[in-house]
């Protein structure tokens, strides 16, 4: 069934939109759950999201998703309208999140080209039971049919559904209006039958009974018929002409609409009889299940939704961005070739200079913009952790809060994709192994509520992501014992430092947790983390204080990240030092330089002594500047180690995109102290220095 309409761009849009909505909703639920009641704004928002998902999935004929979304929508409808007291919000969140998970799984199936065949009936059943309970507490009499629905859910068939609708109708209305509507679409809008189908889906909420010509929208010819003769609808509803008119006008690509009230119902009844027969095999209708007020509200929501959901964001493939960036790079070079053309030398060209300056300005702005497009803040990835945290806490009965710092730190899109999984693993580990049970925490004089801090910051051209918990910390002896047992220790045990012990946990097959839980303990987590981080060229380090907590630091390299760099010159070569690592730069005085008997040069700065590294020396560069007083000293610091780098001169500061050295170079030899390279504005290449690596030279 679902294959029949598969239409690639629409499917992509559906997947993209639904995923976004689901993520948005997850955030909403989690943030609201904390305050243990749902704000009315949030309820409206969730209601709207579910309504959208319901509509779009029904349109794409994913019935399991649409019915589930419908149930959740119903639930939030009750919350919104009746504002019932004593709702168990945590149970509600559980149910809804479970529902979202189901939808997510289905969407992934769809994306992979599989049939979305998951069975949501169990979920829907529990949703209905919940629905019934909150309703029951408030107004038991009014909505018997909800409970009825829950009971009779197992054989929830179209026939039943139809009966149900008409029952509502007889219950709530005495007068009915019959309308005839003829819709014509814009010529060449395409997919007329699909559009018509969309209208019918919306009608499920507006009208109780309807009939349409052409009858069979699945038929190939229907699109042609609709485009030639228009799409005719007959509907029975208790809504006014105006309301129906408004509802139908929302149809996209609508050219004209004729809507008349029909006094004589005979035609309708005749057609309806036919329809009842043909309907047996059509399972794609959206069940319309609630009463009158419900419909009115939903209608309003539709309107808001249409105006508010105009996307201001588009997604672009990263490959295209790469290409764009290369092109801009080329343009910058071409610009330099024109404006600094040797043929122009010695000529007095005032107007040309003016125009060239303008060109240069625009080119550099363009370059900056393109560079920034690829950068994505970590906020999204961090926010996702809230969900992990919540689920874990529920299952393990722990109380933990997540503190997020530096969410706005921007990281290249590629890197974000690589660190999401490791972060999740680490958070899980922290909750499972690190944070103690609330009672235990109290007994130890800690606050009942554990805290996990997730912090991101730029440091020395790297992005540091720090996961800190205030749990019990690593147990050194247990780690050692385990490592000994698994034969993971290669150095004499009395020489091993605390830090080295802690880092043992990152080895494959290491897990001290005796009980394998759902979340951790198989000893695979940590080495997967390491693998993922290493895949983007990062490193991982850990520190821990027994009883106080653990800190795990991920250092993501600058690959592809944009850094602020200071360009320096040594001989003909240019180097870039990440500005964040630079403490100061100055012209040295000979009196400050000390040479020890091994010919190591050192510099006295404000009473402290730092080693000097001559760049031209270590990289064998020809330069005239070998005397300290002719060049410049740049003092850099990383990991609390300081080094004075001696270079010829400073060129200037600029934002650079870090590119990796070509694979061929990296395979030939890993050059110490080089982190990558970058293109300067004039098209020349500058090598980016790795401060930590340089510090290693002098140790």
């Amino acid at each position, binding site marked *: 069934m679902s294959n029949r309409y598969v239409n690639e761009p629409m499917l992509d849009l559906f997947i993209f939109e639904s995923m976004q909505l689901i993520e948005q909703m997850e955030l909403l639920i989690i943030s609201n759950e904390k305050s243990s009641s749902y704000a009315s704004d949030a309820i409206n928002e969730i209601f709207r999201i579910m309504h959208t998902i319901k509509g779009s999935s029904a349109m794409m004929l994913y019935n399991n998703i649409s019915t589930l979304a419908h149930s959740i929508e119903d639930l939030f409808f009750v919350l919104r309208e009746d504002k019932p007291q004593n709702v168990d919000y945590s149970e509600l969140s559980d149910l809804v999140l479970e529902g979202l998970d189901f939808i997510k799984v289905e969407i992934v199936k769809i994306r992979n080209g599989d049939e979305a065949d998951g069975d949501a009936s169990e979920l829907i059943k529990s949703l209905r039971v919940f629905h019934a309970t909150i309703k029951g507490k408030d107004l038991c009499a009014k909505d018997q049919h909800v409970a009825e629905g829950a009971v009779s859910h197992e054989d929830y068939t179209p026939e039943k559904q139809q009966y149900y609708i008409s029952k509502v109708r007889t219950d709530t209305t005495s007068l009915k209006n019959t309308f005839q509507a003829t819709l014509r679409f814009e010529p060449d809008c395409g997919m007329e039958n699909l559009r018509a189908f969309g209208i019918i889906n919306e009608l499920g909420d507006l009208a109780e009974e309807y009939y349409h010509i052409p009858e069979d929208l699945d038929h190939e010819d229907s699109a042609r018929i609709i485009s030639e003769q228009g799409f005719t609808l007959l509907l029975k509803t208790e809504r006014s002409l105006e309301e129906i008119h408004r509802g139908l006008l929302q149809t996209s690509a609508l050219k004209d609409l004729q809507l008349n009230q029909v006094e004589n119902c005979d035609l309708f009844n005749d057609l309806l009889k036919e329809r009842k027969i043909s309907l047996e095999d059509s399972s794609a209708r959206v069940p319309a299940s609630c009463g009158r007020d419900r419909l009115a509200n939903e209608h309003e929501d539709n309107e808001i939704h249409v105006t508010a959901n105009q996307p201001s964001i588009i997604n672009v493939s990263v490959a295209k961005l790469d290409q764009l960036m290369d092109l801009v790079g080329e343009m910058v*070079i071409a610009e330099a070739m024109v404006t600094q053309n040797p043929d122009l030398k010695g000529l007095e060209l005032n107007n040309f200079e003016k125009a060239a300056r303008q060109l240069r300005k625009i080119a550099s702005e363009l370059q900056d913009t393109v560079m920034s497009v690829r950068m994505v803040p970590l906020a999204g990835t961090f926010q996702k952790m809230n969900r992990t945290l919540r689920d874990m806490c529920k299952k393990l009965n722990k109380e933990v809060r997540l503190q997020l710092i530096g969410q706005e730190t921007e990281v290249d899109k590629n890197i974000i994709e690589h660190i999401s999984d490791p972060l999740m693993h680490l958070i899980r580990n922290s909750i499972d192994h690190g944070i103690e049970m609330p009672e235990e925490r109290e007994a130890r004089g800690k606050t009942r509520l554990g805290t996990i801090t997730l912090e991101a910051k730029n440091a020395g051209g790297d992005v540091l992501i720090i996961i800190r918990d205030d749990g019990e910390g690593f147990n050194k002896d247990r780690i050692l014992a385990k490592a000994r047992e698994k034969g993971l220790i290669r150095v004499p045990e009395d020489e091993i430092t605390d830090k080295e012990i802690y880092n043992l946990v990152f080895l494959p097959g290491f897990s001290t947790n005796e009980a394998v839980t759902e979340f951790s303990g198989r000893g695979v987590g940590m080495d997967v983390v390491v693998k993922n981080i290493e895949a983007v060229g990062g490193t991982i380090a850990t520190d821990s204080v027994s009883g106080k907590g653990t800190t795990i630091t991920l250092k993501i390299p600058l690959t592809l990240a944009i850094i602020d760099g200071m360009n320096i010159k040594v001989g003909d070569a240019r180097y870039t030092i990440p500005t964040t690592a630079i403490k100061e730069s100055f012209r040295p005085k000979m009196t400050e330089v000390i040479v020890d008997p091994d010919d190591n040069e050192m510099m006295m700065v404000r009473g402290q002594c730092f080693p000097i590294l001559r760049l031209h020396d*270590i990289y064998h560069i020809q330069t005239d500047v070998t005397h300290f007083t002719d060049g410049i000293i740049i003092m850099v610091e990383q990991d609390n180690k300081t080094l004075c780098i001696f270079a010829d001169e400073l060129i200037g500061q600029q934002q650079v995109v870090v590119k990796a*050295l070509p694979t*061929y170079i990296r395979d*030939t030899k890993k050059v110490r102290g080089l982190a990558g390279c970058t293109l300067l504005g004039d098209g020349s*290449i500058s090598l980016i220095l790795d401060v930590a690596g340089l510090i290693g030279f002098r140790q």
Partner: protein
Amino acid sequence: MADIVEQDTQDQIEDTQKGKFLTFCMGSEFYGIEIKYVTEIIGLQPITEIPEMPIYIKGIINLRGKIIPVMDVRLRFKKPFREYNDRTCIVVIDIREVSIGLIVDSVSEVISIPDEEIVAPPNMAKEGNKYIKGIGKVGSDVKLLLDSDKLLNETDLENMSDL
């Protein structure tokens, strides 16, 4: 469907490229490299040196935003270094996704050498011909056909140990 068409054109390209070699000269010898590996020929560019590299890797260049390493083939073959002039070219080749520029004295032409005109290099004890895949005969001339793979990937033990 599109794939099949693409495959076809791909095959055609392979066919038209088969047996064709780009020849370049170094000193008095002519060398040939299979045309399918060659992406483009560019003039000499400013080269950024990379420290600690073997002597034949001159550094990296910026080829329209793409950074590729360049290798001096003369030095690779342990011939004496010759000053670059305006005949000096960089032949950019692409082998299994790895791009590299080869600095050669000058390029001459693209010629077809049928398989039957190619003979295996004489089996000499000296390791001098390890980068030569075959010797092509064109009229009375002889072209040494390079084994691009080895040129790139054979690690020069001697050079590595220097570092």
